[in-house]
């Protein structure tokens, strides 16, 4: 773990060398979800609600997913760029070092500019929460935190899976974007507005439903009797990363250098 923080420090220093670029990028990262959020706002201004969810409820959902995405993009960016490491054969160097490949890849890249994105979602979160009448209790605060953490784990898991694929394909696959960017875009609305097959896939295969829908029901008091059960569902999202890490280990075993 200490090694990971040292990686972070080095990367931070190197990124601060290009200051203008850094601020422009951060601004851009702030603007991306901002335009998405403005879109959300305008749609609600016109339609009023979506399948019984009002604006602030969806905004809460939006903020949680974007926050989770920003955090995991920050930390797990190394996996996102992993295919270039395999294609160039540089992965060999990681293998001979006396540390696990997992930590090394995780620390190979860190996007501090994602702070812009994070900031935006924090603002949205605060705004949504201040406009929602939730009777807070310790458990509900915990649920909220769990939702964000669970989201980070799911996105990271998907990044790892996509990276593992490149052991076999060498090239990165655009198709993985369906689950990262697509998952983010999709999960910013509560899952029940979609058709059944989408909802099922994103609850049982990739557990976004356990981040943005079920615990949200509990948080907003829409869950009914068994609501407290929903509170535990973010844990399922956290467990999602285990098979991903397992697949990663299998992938590393399977690795053959490109030789270049």
């Amino acid at each position, binding site marked *: 773990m200490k090694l990971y923080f040292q990686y972070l420090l080095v990367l931070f220093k190197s990124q601060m060398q*290009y200051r*203008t*670029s850094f601020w*422009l*990028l951060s*601004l*851009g*990262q702030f*603007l*991306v979800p*901002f*335009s*998405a959020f*403005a*879109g959300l706002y*305008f*749609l609600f*201004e*016109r*339609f009023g*609600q*979506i*399948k019984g969810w009002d604006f602030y409820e969806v905004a809460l959902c939006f903020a949680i997913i974007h926050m989770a995405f920003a955090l995991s993009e920050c930390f797990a960016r190394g996996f996102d760029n992993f295919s270039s490491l395999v294609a160039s054969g540089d992965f060999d160097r990681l293998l001979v070092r006396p540390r696990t490949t997992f930590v090394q890849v995780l620390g190979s890249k860190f996007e501090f500019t994602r702070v812009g994105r994070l900031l935006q979602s924090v603002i949205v979160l605060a705004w949504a929460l201040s406009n929602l009448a939730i009777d807070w209790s310790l458990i509900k605060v915990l649920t909220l935190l769990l939702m964000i953490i669970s989201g980070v784990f799911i996105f990271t898991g998907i990044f790892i899976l996509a990276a593992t694929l490149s052991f076999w394909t060498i090239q990165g*696959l*655009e*198709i993985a*974007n*369906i689950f990262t960017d*697509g998952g983010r*875009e*999709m999960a910013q*609305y509560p899952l029940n*507005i*979609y*058709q059944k097959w*989408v909802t099922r896939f994103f609850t049982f295969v990739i557990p976004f439903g356990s981040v943005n829908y079920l615990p949200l029901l509990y948080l907003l008091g829409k869950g009914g009797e068994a609501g407290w059960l929903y509170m535990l569902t973010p844990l399922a999202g956290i467990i999602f990363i285990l098979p991903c890490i397992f697949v990663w280990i299998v992938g590393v075993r399977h690795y053959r250098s490109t030789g270049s």
Partner: protein
Amino acid sequence: MRTMKPYIAVLRLRLLNGMQYRAAALAGVATQFFWGFIYIMIFQAFYAQASSNQPISLEELVTYLWLQQSFLAFIMLWFRDNELFDLITTGNIAYELCRPIGIYEYWFSKLLAQRLASALLRCFPILLLAFLLPPAYRLMLPPDVKTFLLFCLSLLLGLLVLVAISMFIYISVFITLSPMGSLLVFGVVGEFFAGMVVPIPLMPEWLQQIVYLLPFRLTADFPFRVYSGNIPNGEAVEGIFIQLAWLFVLAFLGKIALQKAMKKIIVQGG
């Protein structure tokens, strides 16, 4: 015609080059299909309980969304040519200056060809599949032949306008030296005003007035609404003249800006 020859050659070469990446295109098609579905479902959910009449019907909107997905390469500002960025940031731009052709026109045709190749590869499978989907998701045919012809013309002009806008991204890199930053800011602002985030007819009145003053909507929103008949043919012809006017203004300004930037550059050795 003779002066056009080198640019047409560049166009052809780039087209062939782009066609090499068929597997990537296939993956792109699948991705865009997924996005199309998600967006349609979101709007279906919104429309399900909408009370009053909306300025664009759900069928027209579905068509609008499919066209967006199929012609993504025509309308996305972040769709970039890293080669040009590298040229500018590494100083290899010096070679470009030696070429006996206008650099604005050269880059313009390069960027144009890249988008054309990518769109040609991707649009047909998406369009075909979208025509065959169950009615709720189906891409509809344009109401008549005249509308279709107007759509084709406006789409092509829209593409030219877009390339002219994207030239400014590359020019701005001369000043910032940071491709990603320029790209992000241009991309986000441009896409929002082109109706990629919220379809323009669904925006509030005051925002629409701003949007109509900017060129971005001419690249995506305008041709797509011509296609579905949401913009009547008469208005479409008017719009095409506006496209032409913007194209000339943007190309003119771009050329001047590029010349200015070129005068200032200092190529470092090495």
